Structure formats: C-alpha cells, structure tokens
C-alpha cells in the first residue's frame, strides 16, 4: 500500500443537509464529518438513499449545506457557487453537451476559464490521448458508444486539472465487462494525474477493489471510515459487516477486554479469541462477526457444531450452510479442488472450526 501524504484535500466538518419541512422533512445528511486526504481514491459506499449524492453535490456546490463547513485545503468553500470551485464532477448520465464535438466538450472548462486557444488545444489533445479517444475527437457525442462517452466525461472533468474529482456512480450504466475495464482505467487515470478522487458507488465489490479508503454510509450518517481491509475485516457495526461481503453473526459473552482484544465465549461453551471494534469496550453479551472463509467444516468436533443443511457449488468455492445446534444458520466457504468434492453431505453432523484471528466484536 503506497504511503499517502497526510494533507487533507477536503474536510467535511459537521455537515447537515435538511430537505423539506414538517412532515416532509428529510435529513439527507446528519452531522457528517470526514477528512479526505490529498491524492487518495476515496469512496462513499452505501445503500440507495443514504445521502451519497447529496454529499457530493455539496462538495461540488450544486447545493448548500444546512449546517457545517466544507474545507478545500483549509478554505471554507461551502458558500461558493460551483463555477468558483476548483472541483469537477463526472455525472452519472455523463451530461455531455450534445451540440459540441468530443474535443469541444473536453475543452469547455478551459474555455470558460478564459485560457488561451493554444493552451486549450494542447491540453485537449493531451486529454484525448490519456483516455485513448484521439481518433474520435471530431465526432458528436451522440455518435459514440456508452463507454466512449464515459471516457469523454472523464477527460472533460480532468482537463481543467481540478484539485478534487467527484464521480457519482460513473460506471453504473455500463455492462459488466466494460465496467471492469473502466475500473482499471479509473485507477490508472488517478495514478497518472495524482488528483484526489471522491467516488460514489453502492457496489461493495467495486469499492473494495478500487479504493484507498472507504466511508460506509447509512441513513445520512457515516458509520465507518477505513481502508478496504479495515472495513472488511474489522467492521465496527453490524450494518457495515452486513453490507460488505457475506457474514455470520454470533452472540457471545465477552470478557478479558484489553488492547483491542478479548475472549469470546460462544453459546456452545467454547471460547475463541476476538478483536474488538475501535473505541469500544464491550460488557457482557455482544455480537461477533465471522466471515464464511475464516471458518472450516470439520468431521470431528469444532468450536461450533451442527447439521449440514445445504451445499451450494460456486465454481471457485463451495458454500456449506450449517444449522447450528442453537438453531442459527452459519455459512462456511471452502475452496474447491478439481479432483474431490467438498467431502460433506446434506444432513451430516459436522463441527465448525473457527480460525484464531477470525472473530471481531461489533458495537451493536
């Protein structure tokens, strides 16, 4: 993981956004604070309606916060109109100007900034090269494919060299294969330009593979900010663990809490080591999370025991659904090999062995 400098490009401080009044009052953002570092690929991840677009629009200046501050390199930009902010946006529907060519679209920002013609031309051809669209420079934007429009939208937003680039679900309109290609393309562009990217998505896989850091949002709040690894392996709350990847939740008695570690006594009576969500001191019972790939189905006794209810073959791996003795369902994920089946049958009594570093105690 490359070291990122510690300067903040954007600081969102105590920002709230309220739409409507009375019955129709919606707090799209509820006292949100988050620093976004220079040069990082920062992702806002959350389900539909959680306020991702609203936060992006406030940073871009298309809307103004009800409360709070938005700092760009230390200066409060919250009251500035969008055309005075060195921040550009890639829109979900691209919003390319239909009456202009590809090149004119890309040059628009620089033209509005009053840059000399020679400079605009040089920069536009540089941008066309960056997104590999040189051959289509003279085309109308209605005469190019969706993936190509996406590239033009990126080039148009990057051309004025913004301090921060905002991307609102830019890949959601593309089909699966093109989407994978554009994910790699976006990472490349971010590396080459060194611009801070704030990327919005509700696709957890996309967030995990692309981001330096992720903020998980729900109902107008940011629940957790961290690296993909942090978010996946050390979720702080049930919502985060549930939203990202597949998860098993267990109830356990927690004691011996020290230095972010604890002992968790499962309902089966067995005790396993666990890590504890940051800044949290559990008392008594708590929820712990174990990812399916951090547990194994075993013939003999394990930390848990139960009956195989279902076996689902996924190509790369097999999911074994175990009905535990206390009635809960637990999923185990196991790598497949070419020559042998998973070795278990439905209805068989088995043990579940949990790796030593698998369990994390959640805040709720």
């Amino acid at each position: 993981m490359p070291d990122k400098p510690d300067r903040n490009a954007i600081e969102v401080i105590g920002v709230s956004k309220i739409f409507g009044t009375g019955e129709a009052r919606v707090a799209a953002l509820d006292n949100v604070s988050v620093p976004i570092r220079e040069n990082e690929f920062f992702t806002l991840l959350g389900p539909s309606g959680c306020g991702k677009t609203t936060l992006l629009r406030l940073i871009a200046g298309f809307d103004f916060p009800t409360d709070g501050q938005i700092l760009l390199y230390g200066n409060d930009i919250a009251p500035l109109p969008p055309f005075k902010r060195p921040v550009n946006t890639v829109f979900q529907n691209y919003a390319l100007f239909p009456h202009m060519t590809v090149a004119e679209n890309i040059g628009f920002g620089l033209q509005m900034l009053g840059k000399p013609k020679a400079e605009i031309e040089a920069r536009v051809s540089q941008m066309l090269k960056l997104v590999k669209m040189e051959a289509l420079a003279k085309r109308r934007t209605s005469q190019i494919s969706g993936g190509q429009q996406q590239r033009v939208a990126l080039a148009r937003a990057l051309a004025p060299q913004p301090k921060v680039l905002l991307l609102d679900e830019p890949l959601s309109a593309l089909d699966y294969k093109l989407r994978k290609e554009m994910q790699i393309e976006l990472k490349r562009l971010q590396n080459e330009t060194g611009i801070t990217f704030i990327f919005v998505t509700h696709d957890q896989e996309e967030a995990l593979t692309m981001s330096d850091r992720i903020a998980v949002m729900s109902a107008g709040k940011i629940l957790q900010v961290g690296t993909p690894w942090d978010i996946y392996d050390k979720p702080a709350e049930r919502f985060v663990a549930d939203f990202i990847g597949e998860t098993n939740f267990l109830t356990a008695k927690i004691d011996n809490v020290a230095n972010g570690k604890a002992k968790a006594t499962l309902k089966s009576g067995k005790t396993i080591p666990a890590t504890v969500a940051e800044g949290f001191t559990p008392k008594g019972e708590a929820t712990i999370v174990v990812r399916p790939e951090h547990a194994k189905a075993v013939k003999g006794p394990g930390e848990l025991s139960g009956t195989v209810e279902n076996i689902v073959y996924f190509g790369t791996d097999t999911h074994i659904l175990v009905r535990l003795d206390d009635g809960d369902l637990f999923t185990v994920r196991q790598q497949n090999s070419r020559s042998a089946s998973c070795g278990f049958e439905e209805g068989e009594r088995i043990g579940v062995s949990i790796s030593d570093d698998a369990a994390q105690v959640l805040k709720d």
Partner: protein
Amino acid sequence: MAKRATFDIRQQTGFTTVAMICFFLLYLPIVTLVAYAFNDNDSVAIWKGFSLRWFYSAWNNTQVIDASIRSFQIAIAAALIATVAATMAALATTRTKPYKGLTFKYAFINQPLMVPEIVTAVALLVFFSRIKIWTGYSGLGYLIAAHTAFCIPFAYLPIRARLENMDLSLETAAADLYATGWKTFRYVTLPLLWPGILAGLMLAFVVSLDDVVITEFVKSGGQDTLPTYMLGQLRRIVTPEINAISTVFLLLSVAIVTIFFIISRKRT
C-alpha cells in the same frame, strides 16, 4: 412474416378513403383559388384562359404594395419582440423551483389564446384611442404593440416545451466547468434552445401576418395590412387580383416555413 408488433392505424379499413377525403376538402379550395389567379377574365368565377395579368395588376397596385410592406414591418417587429419576451418568460417559468402561483402565471401568459379576439380588439380600440388623444401619436406602434401581445403565447409554447425537455444536468455540468450563469446560458442553454426559439419566431410571424380582427379595430386611417386590405376589397368588385395576391401570400408563407424548418433541422 413476423407478427405485427404494434397497432398500425393504416391497416384499419377505410383509413385511406377518409384520409383522401380530408385532404381533398382541405386543399381543393386552395387549389381552386390558385388556379383562378391565372384566369384571363374580370370575374373570379368564370374561366376564360391562362394569363398573368392579375399578378401584374397587383404588382402595380400601390395600395397592395403598401399594405404588404406594412404587414411585413408589423410581423417582423412583433415576432421579434414577442420571441424575446417569450424566451425570457419561458426561462422564468421553467428554470425555477415550482411555487404557488406558477400555474396562474402560465394562464396569464397564455391569456390571449383564451380571450375571444373580438373582446381584445374592442378593448384595444378604446384604450388606444385615449392614448392617441393624449399623445397625438398615431403611427404603427399601436399595431406592433397589439400584435406583440397576441404573438407572445404562440412564441412561448414551443420555447417552453423545448426547455422542459432539456436535460437540466447539462446546465449543472456547465456551472461545474466554470461557466457563470450568463456563460451557461450563452454556450449551453441558448444553442440547445435555438430550434424552439426559431419555431416560436416562425409561429409568431405567421400569426401576426395573418391577423384581421385586432388589426381592423386598432389600425388608424391608411394603415391597412394585406389581410385588412383584401377584406376591404371583398366589399367592392371582386377580381382575380385577390386570387393573385393570395397566391403570392401563400407561396411566401410556404417558403418561410420551409426555410425555418430546414434551419431547425440542421441545428439538431
């Protein structure tokens, strides 16, 4: 053959017949009118032979030429002013958050379409005669003002339709790319709005050129437009000169509509 996917009205029995009858009824009188413009006779009703004499006669009739020039002056001025006003009104009623009274404003702008023309005509006659007495001015200004007023809704409708169909995120994108409000209008909204503005201008122009009732009431002596002149002629002896004038009028309208159509097609 593949199954027919959608309902096609042309497959309906009798469709062609009905369509032919409608076209016939619509265009037969016009065809007759044009044909008799070439009639070598003093009467409009009895065909004698082919001649262009009524076109010469109209061309040499200073009253006809005067009225034509006046018609165009009024139509051009009224259409231009009405289109500018309608564009501003359309922007003001679409580029805003909906508020109480917006529907009332639509009604207000479209009022001339709903009030019977004769009512407006009488009202203007009374109103303008007062102003004429106070100011002593009796030029074309009154006719231009009156025509502008009833042209505005015709110009407004296509412009508003175009604005409502325009993707708002384009203007947001322009603002994001450092365009101020004015530059956004100049470089994004206006170019995309242009076909709507042209359509509005054309409609306003044709509606003004064509008006009889309000013009008849508002005009001062010697301010005949082509339609009011023709109406006046009908009260006297009718010669094919009227047909000749109408034919030229028709050709001009068709030409104007075609030109506007081609321009707006190129723009989009």
